[in-house]
């Protein structure tokens, strides 16, 4: 079966699209668990499933670069940062009481309203749109890398200066040395 020649209807049941929907259900389910679980560490771990599932969705949409960026930055860095934050700040982990529920119903209404709006807009805009991606896919790792290291090489390299400055600043603000250690090398 040739995927490229198959008809491109909205939700036509090809293998890739079935997989897309199934992974989407997993993402949706784990996202619900992130906000409903009472254990904050479990929430962080469910977030890994959600974000990893999203990466798989990107792969199915042939956006490989975005997929690996998703894995590296969100799964790799953000969730790890979250867990480190829990470890280092003496925040209570384990079972926690349900949060104050006074704002729960308005919050749900707002969330549902936002979801409905987004769904309407996206379905309305892209239901009939079909974009043929050529061989030189915009957003592929090759094209992104080419432009990143050719056209945008200076901003890219200079960003490392920013990160170094932030690192030094974080050390200045957080590192405390005690008198006991000060005689060692100072």
């Amino acid at each position, binding site marked *: 079966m040739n995927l490229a020649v198959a008809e491109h209807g909205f939700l036509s049941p090809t293998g890739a699209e079935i997989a897309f929907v199934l992974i989407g259900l997993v993402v949706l389910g784990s996202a619900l668990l992130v906000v409903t679980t009472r254990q904050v560490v479990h929430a962080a771990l469910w977030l890994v499933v959600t974000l990893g599932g999203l990466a798989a969705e990107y792969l199915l949409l042939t956006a490989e670069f975005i997929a690996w960026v998703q894995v590296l930055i969100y799964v790799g860095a953000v969730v790890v940062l979250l867990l480190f934050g829990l470890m280092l700040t003496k925040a209570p982990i384990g079972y926690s009481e349900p949060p104050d529920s006074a704002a729960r119903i308005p919050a749900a209404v707002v969330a549902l309203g936002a979801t409905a709006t987004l769904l309407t807009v996206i379905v309305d805009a892209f239901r009939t749109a079909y974009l043929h991606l050529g061989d030189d896919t915009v957003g592929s790792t090759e094209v992104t890398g*080419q432009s990143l290291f050719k056209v945008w090489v*200076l901003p890219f390299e200079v960003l490392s200066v920013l990160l170094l400055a932030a690192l030094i600043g974080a050390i200045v603000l957080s590192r405390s040395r005690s008198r006991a250690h000060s005689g060692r090398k100072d």
Partner: protein
Amino acid sequence: MSMSTAATATLAVTKVDAPTIEYGKLSPILIIAGVAVVGVLIEAFLPRPARYRAQLTVALVGMIAAFGAVVWLARDLPDDHRGSVTAMGAVAVDGPSLFLQGTLLLIGIASVLLIGERRLEPAGGDAFAPQAAAAPGSQQEKDAAAAGWTQTEVYPLTMFSLVGMLLFPAANDLLMMFVALEILSLPLYLLCGLARRHRLLSQEAALKYFLLGAFSSAFFLFGVAMLYGYSGSVSLDKIGVASAGAMDNDALLLIGLAMVAVGLLFKVGAVPFHSWTPDVYQGAPTPITGFMAAATKVAAFGAMMRFFYVALPGMRWDWRPVMIGVAIVTMVAGAIIAITQTDVKRLLAYSSIAHAGFILTGMIAMSDAGVSSTMFYLVAYGFVTLGAFAVVTLVRDARGEATHLSHWAGLGRRSPLVAGVFALFLLAFAGIPLTSGFSGKFAVFQAAARGGAGSLVVVGVLCSAVAAFFYVRVIVLMFFSEPKVDGPTVVVPSVMTTAAIALGVAVTVVLGILPQPVLDLADKAALFVH
């Protein structure tokens, strides 16, 4: 089948052409970035007592070398003074870039001299917290102060900020401009929170500056996205070409323009984005306040001029009326609110807001004379404000700097020299003839009048008159009131602060009496590369 052929196509190795970067043309920026990295290495490997001297030497030598590189590049500019674009279109090396980079490096040298001052605190140490991680008022903090610790990381942080400042007015695309904006801002947020005295005030200032700064950066970035959506490029030239043909009111272009302008106006402290200025100027360590007040304005006005002159010259009939309004509100609010201030640092902060309005006046002229007069004003203002904050560090009592105006009563009788120098700076702020402030104001008002913004000039002159009132009031307070019995004393600084103040006095007097050489230089340097 087609999927497998696609897979082999991506696996095939294609040759990547290396980007062309003219390192020579980036040398001032690269030197300062190198100095910052060497500063980090000094922190890592040198024993603590040796760091101060090493940091100071490396920073000063590096900035002098970078200034030499700027002069060398300026001599290499072709005869028609057109510059060129380098680093794949990211950085413009032209007259305004080099003029402002030279100014920034000189301000940087004077600022590092102030930052390195260690004679003023009675217990020793510099203007920065002995240990930033210790909670204010804690035993740990007292121990750190008693042990005489200092944090020499302030030098590499200042250099990092300077890297961003050198890049900001030279950035030729909006992406580079945003990265430069972040590099110049982030170290400043940190440095604001490191004051040795009044630490809670200092930390509050840092947090306020950080939150509002992050907010304004978001505005800037969203504006960049809008302009990219309009023109399909972030390059200032290409946005200029695309916006030149804008006939109808294109929402994307106008919203993008407005949001980028908000980000830039925040950095220069123009009304209505000025609310951070007094708190941050008051809370930050005074040498950093001086650096921030002088250098950030130079860098941000440079970037703002490039944005409006290169990317949006075709849109001038849309943005000029708005900017004229901003300039008027900025001058009026800065001058009037300054009258009510009772703290010297806050007074200088509102004065800097009023001056942002005067500088905007020059920018709005939308001509070469507008660019050159704005750049001249930035030089004049930068050194006056740095000198004024340097004098503020000298007037002290038991609790540190005595910044309340009532403490300055009668200062002229106790130490006529320091009070006289401060009076000179105040007169320059007010724009009295024979000071640099007069030459600068004359140049921007002349450019604005020729550019057809006569109403702006009238408001500007009126605001100067109002502003002169509170500057003269401080002078009267210093020289014609009785000194308080428990008033502050003027501490004798080391040669470094003396040199910085002397530089400020020299620039103020020379640009007041003989402004022509610098005006000519600014005239020659007034062409942006397209």
